[in-house]
């Protein structure tokens, strides 16, 4: 498995890097969707998979990033690139604020609360609170991407924008896995009392996970807004959150698992058009089967790596 992964990652990156040149417009759009939803699913993985918190509201942070970009661009005339920092920071701050009072809740309670947040968020968008969200229709006709005076209108540029965002996300997750905060998240997910008893302030790291997951989802929101040059409330409904939640659980808390989940959920239906109506049906069965047969997901999490010098001869290692 390890060797396979070593080999598979470069291949995956190379294929993804040349992919848009081999696809027509429609398929480019599908590929972009895959990239965007992969980033959101990975951000959900930080909260649900890595830290074990039952967050059913990830579409909220995704939407918040998308709306931040749309509003700043349309209402205030910012260039898309300039909206990125706020499209990360605003959802991240909201993630932290919302998580603060709820992270001590047990899994099922947390689940219900985050569903509530998501529903409230969509209601706020639909009712055009503050007069900037555009109501049920949302905001459309966004500017295209431009950078250093170059207009990046083509879909290929959007693809590379999305690809860079995915690479950035993978890089952050890699850094997280080999860091004190990343391990703290694993520990609290495995046994919260043991984690506290070894000196970990679990509350801080739970909130951190929410903030980080929300920030990354927000960034994906920017890409989403660019891709469709529009945002509207129904794209961020709670049912979207259910999808992200299920993808992480069924895929398993690992990069291949999550990407596989996104592929099955969002790309396969495009390949087999008839499959589109069947996808919930099939995914529903996949969820049932996976949870019964592989409760840790199809491609389960591998925890943080340990340095080579600790692995001695005659190791009973995995």
């Amino acid at each position, binding site marked *: 498995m390890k060797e396979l992964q070593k080999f598979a990652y470069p291949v995956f990156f190379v294929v993804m890097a040349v992919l848009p040149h081999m696809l027509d417009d429609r398929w480019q759009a599908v590929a972009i969707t895959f990239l965007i939803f992969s980033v959101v699913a990975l951000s959900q993985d930080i909260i649900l998979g890595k830290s074990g918190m039952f967050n059913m509201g990830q579409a909220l942070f995704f939407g918040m990033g998308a709306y931040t970009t749309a509003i700043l661009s349309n209402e205030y005339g910012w260039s898309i690139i300039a909206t990125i920092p706020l499209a990360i920071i605003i959802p991240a701050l909201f993630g932290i604020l919302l998580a603060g009072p709820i992270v001590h809740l047990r899994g099922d309670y947390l689940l219900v609360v985050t569903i509530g947040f998501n529903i409230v968020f969509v209601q706020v968008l639909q009712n055009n609170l503050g007069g900037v969200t555009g109501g049920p229709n949302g905001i459309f006709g966004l500017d295209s991407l431009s950078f250093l005076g170059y207009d990046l209108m083509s879909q290929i540029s959007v693809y590379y924008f999305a690809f860079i965002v995915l690479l950035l996300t993978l890089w952050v997750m890699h850094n997280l896995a080999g860091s004190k905060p990343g391990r703290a998240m694993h520990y609290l997910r495995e046994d919260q009392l043991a984690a506290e008893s070894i*000196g*970990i302030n679990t509350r801080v790291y739970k909130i951190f996970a929410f903030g980080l997951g929300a920030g990354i989802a927000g960034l994906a929101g920017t890409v989403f807004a660019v891709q469709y040059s529009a945002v509207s409330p129904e794209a961020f409904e709670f049912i979207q959150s259910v999808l992200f939640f299920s993808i992480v659980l069924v895929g398993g808390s690992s990069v291949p698992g999550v990407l596989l989940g996104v592929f099955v959920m969002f790309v396969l239906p495009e390949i087999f058009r008839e499959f589109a109506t069947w996808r919930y049906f099939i995914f529903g069965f996949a969820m049932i089967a996976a949870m019964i047969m592989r409760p840790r997901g199809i491609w389960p999490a591998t925890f943080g790596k340990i340095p080579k010098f600790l692995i001695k001869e005659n*190791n009973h290692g995995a």
Partner: protein
Amino acid sequence: MAHNELILTDVTKRFGGLTAVDALSFKVESGQIYGIIGPNGAGKTTVFNCITGIYKSEEGSVLWRGEEIRGMTPYQIVDRGIVRTFQTIRLFGQMSVAENIMSGRHIKSAQKWWHGIIPTPGKKRDELENWKNVEEQLDFFKLSEFAATPVGSLPYGIQRRVEIARAMAVEPTLLILDEPAAGLNDKETLELLETIFKIRDKGVTVLLIEHDMDMVMEVTDYLTVINFGKKIAEGTPEEIQKNPAVIEAYLGSEDDDDE
């Protein structure tokens, strides 16, 4: 100021109508191996939970190095040098032995939250230093061969050792062990005794609960015996062995203390 002393005064913890710990007082001095014994359900684990911040006692005081730690959270107490193990082993089961021990380095690591996002040269150094410490613990506890093994798949005796290794990775001043010999065979128990002595030789004070009388008599310097949450005796192992109240409490419960 008193150095590395743990002083409990009139600590009382109730669960509903049950007084699990009843006005208990004792004092652990620096460098001791101190034992708490008593029949099952006597309230030993509950006392440990009150010291380590898992429960807050309703009354009394828990002084550590002259500071009141009653009411602090577990991680605040760990930060002050008190680390514990659990009667029912609590490890991070799916993670490797090395990662489990690394969790003990959490509070020693200088990394901040942003190091989880962006690496810096300082973070790299910090990671290496802490993994080096894990390597030392692996050597000390003879766990090197299991470094990469998921801890949940290991036998009980080794899991116990990993749990103590994890606690020692924190570099505690006071190590609290809740029935460390429970579930161990004779050979493993003997190794455990040796380990406890070696830990004390490093300058760590040890407070332990033990059910096995023979082991307690061999390893501890001083003992407190509790029954129904109350202290019934204290003294050196020799004194305790002769104490009629202790013999009575133990004989009276001899048949149900096979846990």
